[in-house]
């Protein structure tokens, strides 16, 4: 029993944090918004140099062969930087799904994905939309018992603009009976389930990073902003709002980390653990978005101030890969089942 991360994982996190601190600045994010795009091929190439796209791709396919016990830390950094790249779909959800489908599809696409040469977008039952379908090279679309691998060019894509310009949603016109398909994986219900679970986990990790950043920005701003002759951060009304955010964040974090462990080790309850993580991180982030705005006051309400880059991420990631309400219902069903094992000692037990 050891809840600490490996040194290597922590070191990788630090590297990515430094990298994004330089490369994915608020100016970068705004520049992407201004051109009406989120994905930046140049930045993606540099992420590929760090091995990010192939994080979870087996070494045999050119990836780093790591698991969620490392990637969860990096997704926290993606959230902290409000990185507008399709990392959840391609890196966290798509690559493992291809790995699990295996065969020729995996052999063809995993090396390209790991090399940063292919972007994968994914569908799942928690949303009618597919993010970043327009910049993807391959779509993985679960229908009933099968996962269909389709080229975006063979589908009709309809842009569905979201409140978060970093989130590029599309309705995908796809007819299993008519649309040409690159491949079809039959009997892939479990793979499709895991795809959603993995996407939720990555979204939860990004939510942690976004929350942390909003708290940081708010503590900084309120430490500088003076009213009534002192920094507003010295007023309890401001302090206590941010303290509450910090409590929520620090009690969401271990839930997300445990979920990462469960996914990495194929724990039979991983879907439950990820639902708990998504709820905890989503609640922390939306709670914090509101308080961060409140303590910023009017300045936080402007387009110019950077705070809303993270507020929008908080709102849209709460939506992504299943809203809190959906995940909470998973938890409700689980704990109310006749044979649920609850209580002291049950936390780390297999089902």
């Amino acid at each position, binding site marked *: 029993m050891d809840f600490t991360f490996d040194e290597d994982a922590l070191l990788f996190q630090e590297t990515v944090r430094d990298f994004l601190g330089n490369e994915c600045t608020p100016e970068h994010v705004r520049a992407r918004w201004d051109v009406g795009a989120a994905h930046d091929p140049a930045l993606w190439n540099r992420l590929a140099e760090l091995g990010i796209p192939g994080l979870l791709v087996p070494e045999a396919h050119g990836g780093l062969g790591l698991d969620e016990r490392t990637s969860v830390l990096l997704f926290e950094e993606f959230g902290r930087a409000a990185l507008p790249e399709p990392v959840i779909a391609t890196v966290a959800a798509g690559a493992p799904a291809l790995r699990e489908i295996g065969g020729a599809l995996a052999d063809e696409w995993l090396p390209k994905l790991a090399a940063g040469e292919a972007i994968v977008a994914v569908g799942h039952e*928690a*949303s*009618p*939309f597919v993010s970043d379908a327009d910049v993807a090279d391959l779509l993985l679309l679960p229908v009933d018992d099968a996962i269909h691998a389709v080229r975006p060019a063979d589908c009709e894509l*309809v*842009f*569905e*603009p*979201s*409140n*978060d310009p970093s*989130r590029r*949603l599309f*309705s995908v016109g796809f007819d299993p009976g008519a649309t040409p398909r690159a491949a079809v994986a039959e009997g892939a219900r479990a793979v499709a389930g895991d795809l959603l679970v993995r996407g939720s986990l990555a979204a939860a990790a990004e939510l942690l990073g976004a929350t942390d950043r909003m708290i940081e920005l708010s503590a900084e701003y309120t430490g500088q902003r*003076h*009213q*009534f002759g002192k920094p*507003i951060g010295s*007023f309890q*009304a*401001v302090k206590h709002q941010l303290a509450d955010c910090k409590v929520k964040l620090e009690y969401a974090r271990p839930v997300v980390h445990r979920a990462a462990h469960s996914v990495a080790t194929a724990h039979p309850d991983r879907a439950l653990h990820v639902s708990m993580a998504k709820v905890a991180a989503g609640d922390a982030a939306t709670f914090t978005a*509101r308080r961060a*705005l*409140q303590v910023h*006051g*009017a300045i936080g*309400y*402007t*387009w*110019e101030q950077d705070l*809303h880059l993270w*507020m929008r991420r908080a*709102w*849209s990631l709460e*939506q992504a890969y299943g*809203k809190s*309400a959906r995940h*909470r*219902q998973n938890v409700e069903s689980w704990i109310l089942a006749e044979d649920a094992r609850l209580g002291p000692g049950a936390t780390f037990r297999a089902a």
Partner: protein
Amino acid sequence: MDLRYTAEQDAFRAEARAWLEANVPKEPLPSFDTKEGFEAHRAFEKELHAGGWAMVPWPVAYGGRGANLLEWLIFEEEYYRAGAPGRVNQNGIFLLGPTIMEFGTDEQKARFLPKMAASEEVWAQGWSEPNAGSDMANIQATAVRVRDGDGDHYVINGQKTWASRGAYAHWLFGMFRTDPESERHRGLSFILVPLDAPGITVRPIEKLNGKAAFAEVFFDDARVPAEHLLGCEGKGWNVAMATAGFERGLMLRSPARFQRTAARLVELYRRNEAECAPGLRERVADCWMRAEAYTLETYRTVSRLLAGGKIGAEASLNKIFWSELDMEMHELALEILGVRGELLPRAPSATGVEDWLDGYIFALSGPIYAGTNEIQRNVIAERLLGMPR
């Protein structure tokens, strides 16, 4: 206590309803935070004025209808019931208008009120400065009185910010420091400023939805005739406190607005109940009850005012109540909309999302503007509960 409308009140309602049904645009106007929308709203305000419905509680002499506050409540109910446009002229109707009636000279009343009523002149607020937000007494923009060949003027320098309607308005009202030696609340004056005067630069500020809800206004030796001083020189704080009371209190946030939102929320829930988590039902009911409570409290206050009562620090209770209610109603609506809650209305799949997202973003500003809710809580504790400063 008799909570039934009189026959006269029913007739007044019927008259308002009939006019509104005939005149309210069938399609929503574009947002008044765009130039086009601003003018469209202004055109509708002119129609309201022509119909005699622009300034319902104002005296007839200034372009109003001379109705009492209860009739005003009834009018507002009909206005929101009809889904009529937001009042681009609200700074005039609800804030500056009553302030001028209380503090203005006869000349000022005659000069400003009728044009305000007719929406010939639309007003921006100029309360805040970069270092005077919650701390409204920390105003640094100066107005120096100069009597020279051009007459008796104030020469204004400094900066205002978060001027609502500032991007397209014609005039701005605000406080300026007329006594350079003064500190805090003293030595401030309330001045009415034409935004087209030389030396004034308006820079629109985009709010969270990317629209120009407010503006920064820069003053560089801008000259304003001294007769545009409202109230006494150096006593601007008293004038402003009256205006702020109007803002927090009764006039600006009429209950009908929240009742309409609450009714739409119930409707939205009814349409989407099958997909909602079971707990949403009671949250919807709770919001509806709070909108009713706000209505009842307003009727109670109006009855008290009509009986000769005054409104004071209770306005701070209002501010907290409506701003939190409004935010929660919109939050809940987005929750009900589920995955479609984040779509912009122009998204092809956004059928039925209405304007809840934009409303949410607007509602988020409620606990901030017109004095943050933190400031209001201080006021309640100190002035209503007698707690120590």
